[in-house]
């Protein structure tokens, strides 16, 4: 038995697929899609699910996350129904539905998301104000703003928070998409082998290189997206290196002979170089998307939901402030560096706390969907 949700199409239309009911189901979008494949067809099937109210079917479709909105379907659609926008809106819808208790609904309402971000920023600001140490203005020492222990504990709490919610929501998503598994049974040994093999395919091809994204026509957009991702990774590495330098490698240096041989300052230099590269490409990537969404010259950037803006602007601010810390240290403007550091912490806090419920979550859901898809492909290849 299939349960239908008669309000489904109305809710999805509100999330950005304004013209989708014009669809007359010709299938040109599926035929022209560069990512559509046998057994994983998109987007026409998703349009039918949405219009017919087949909510479970829609949420069970990993295809939603196999689409990168290159816009070829929307450009050739004879009804101007904008199938690409439907895929985007359905992804927004499934972020809400996959979230714990549907809490992500808050971040898909313009007013609620801004209010909650302001509240979160105030909490973070208050936290910094209450726990702040005395600033060392002769050099930049992050621990003179907040103690090593405080940052360490807060970081740990946030990491556990993210991990737990990501795991729970990932399981929730898997419980939906497992219904799209292809038929066929493999021996347990092969299953494990395939699972590991597909994991590495996802890790290297998808997470690190975004290879599927590169199949879309617009290469500049792929490069910009990759730039944001690697900007993030590089800034994260730089932050970790800096942290290691200042924390004296968690006291390990005293315990092991071999670590004593390493010049501690090398971490600082490395952190600076990696940080500047990461900051530059991250700023480039986020400015590219902000610019594209402002001039609306492309299919995918014509309509921006409030959640797109919040996500993009937060990412931009986190990367920019992280980058500016480096610049100000380099130019010996330490007070400004501390101010940037505080702002960086606040924006990063906002971004991380809301990550599982905002557009940020697409990173996780996409990887799960691609993993699932790669696993299914291995299943039928034998």
């Amino acid at each position: 038995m299939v349960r239908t949700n008669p309000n489904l199409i109305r809710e999805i239309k509100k999330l950005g697929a304004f013209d989708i009911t014009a669809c007359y189901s010709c299938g040109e979008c599926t035929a022209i899609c560069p990512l559509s494949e046998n057994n994983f067809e998109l987007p026409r099937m998703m349009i039918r699910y949405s219009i017919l109210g087949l909510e479970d079917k829609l949420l069970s479709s990993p295809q939603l996350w196999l689409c990168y909105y290159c816009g070829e379907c929307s450009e050739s659609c004879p009804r101007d129904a904008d199938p690409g926008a439907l895929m985007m809106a359905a992804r927004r819808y499934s972020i809400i539905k996959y979230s714990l208790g549907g809490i992500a609904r808050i971040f898909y309402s313009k007013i609620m998301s801004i209010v909650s971000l302001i509240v979160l920023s105030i909490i973070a600001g208050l936290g910094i104000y209450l726990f702040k140490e005395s600033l060392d203005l002769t050099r930049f020492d992050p621990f003179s703003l907040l103690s090593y222990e405080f940052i360490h504990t807060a970081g740990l709490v946030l990491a556990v928070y993210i991990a737990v919610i990501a795991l729970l929501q990932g399981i929730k998503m898997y419980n939906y998409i497992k219904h799209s598994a292809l038929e066929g049974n493999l021996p347990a040994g092969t299953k494990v082998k395939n699972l590991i093999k597909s994991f590495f395919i996802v890790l290297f091809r998808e997470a690190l290189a975004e290879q599927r994204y590169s199949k879309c026509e617009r290469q500049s957009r792929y490069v910009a997206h990759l730039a944001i991702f690697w900007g993030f990774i590089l800034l994260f590495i730089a932050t970790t290196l800096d942290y290691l330098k200042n924390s004296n490698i968690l006291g390990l240096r005293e315990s092991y002979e071999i670590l004593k041989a390493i010049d501690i300052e090398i971490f600082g230099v490395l952190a600076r170089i990696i940080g500047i590269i990461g900051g530059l490409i991250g700023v480039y990537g986020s400015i590219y998307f902000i610019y594209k969404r402002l001039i609306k010259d492309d299919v995918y950037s014509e309509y921006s939901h409030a959640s797109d803006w919040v996500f993009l602007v937060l990412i931009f601010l986190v990367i920019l402030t992280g980058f500016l810390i480096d610049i100000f240290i380099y130019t010996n403007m330490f007070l400004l560096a501390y101010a940037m550091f505080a702002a960086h912490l606040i924006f990063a806090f906002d971004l991380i706390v809301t990550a599982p419920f905002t557009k940020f979550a697409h990173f996780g859901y996409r990887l799960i969907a691609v993993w699932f898809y790669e696993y299914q492909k291995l299943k039928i290849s034998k």
Partner: protein
Amino acid sequence: MKQANEYDVLIIGAGIAGIEAALTLGDAGYRVLLVEKEGSIGGKMALLSKTFPTLDCASCIATPKMAAAAHHPNITLLTYSEVQEVVKNGEADFSVKILKKPRYVDLDACTGCGICETVCPVIVSDEFQYDMRGRKAAYIPFDIAVPKKAIIDLDNCILCGSCERECPASAIDFTQEPETLEVKVGAIIIATGFKLFSPTLRPEFGYGRCKNVITAMQMDRLLAPTRPYNSVLRPLDGKEPMRIAYILCVGSRDRKVGNPYCSQICCMYSIKQAQLIMGALPLADVAIFYIDIRAFGKGFEEFFNQTQAMGTMFIKGRVIVVEEDKEGNVVVKYEDMDDGGRLKEDTFDLVVLAVGAMPNSDITKVFKNVKIELDEVGWIKQVDPNNNPATTSVPGIFVAGCAAGPKDIPDSIVEADAAAAQCMAYLNEHKYGRKR
């Protein structure tokens, strides 16, 4: 031929609608001037293979009507001529300027023997065979042309003079000049028909990119009695196609190219061609890729069912032409909706695009002091389609056939006779004062 300068009715366009309206008016005793811009009357119907759903021979229906129009005492034919200016002076009083393009052949002298065609050394692409064959620079438009008289195509002529020397009737006359006729008419019927959608506007379907992608009009020529090759052959290498695919709704129901309407004829002519192909190439497979089959007319549904029963595959799903493979076959991709929406790839020897009908309303520009309204797509607007189907926004100017919107041949005939009847009523009231 002595030209009178006053007529009851001017009919612009001598396709099947224009001819039918002219014959009805002529039989009723009205003097008709029938103007056609091509060298022969007959329009698109004269070039078709069969009609649907009865599979009557199209030229066997069109040719007698063409000949009747040409020989009717009340009908004056002006071929290779274009209406240049129309001024409405009052009810039932129009001044018309018509450009007679030079044929460089004396119409009265030419016997249509075709010797000029044989001796002419210049070969160019034949527009009446939709570029599938060549014609000469001295040519008779097509086999069943009316009037069957030669034309010298001076744009491509090299002025070698062979035709002039060889013509047994001495009909070639290179001294002809364009000539403007001024006539007075009481009413006008616009029967300019339609244009075919240009499939290059939709590169997804491969026209121009793959040699073996043709339009349905080209396929109809391949199947017609006056066909270019005497068999169904594909253009690239002259091979008999064994697997033929049809893509429906090319340029119809398509907001991307600005034609949101259904062209009404494409489903049925494709089904008709599928039946004819099964007759011409009994071993060929025909697959028709459709969005919806619109078999709305009398006998259409039965015709569709019969074609299905004969073995034509009907596949729901729009096709994208991917590429041409090494043998020149066409690789296509589609979502097979009847098979659970699976994405499939297939190869066909020949792909036929069922191109839609486009408005052909440029003629409205020649009307100087009155404005003929067009509908939102560009067809001539029928201001009162329920009560007076042939009436345009200008009293005294009527519309017939596909000029008002896409339709099949029987509907065009009906509308042509409706226009003729309304024309008579208008003339009786305003010109002859015979109002009851």
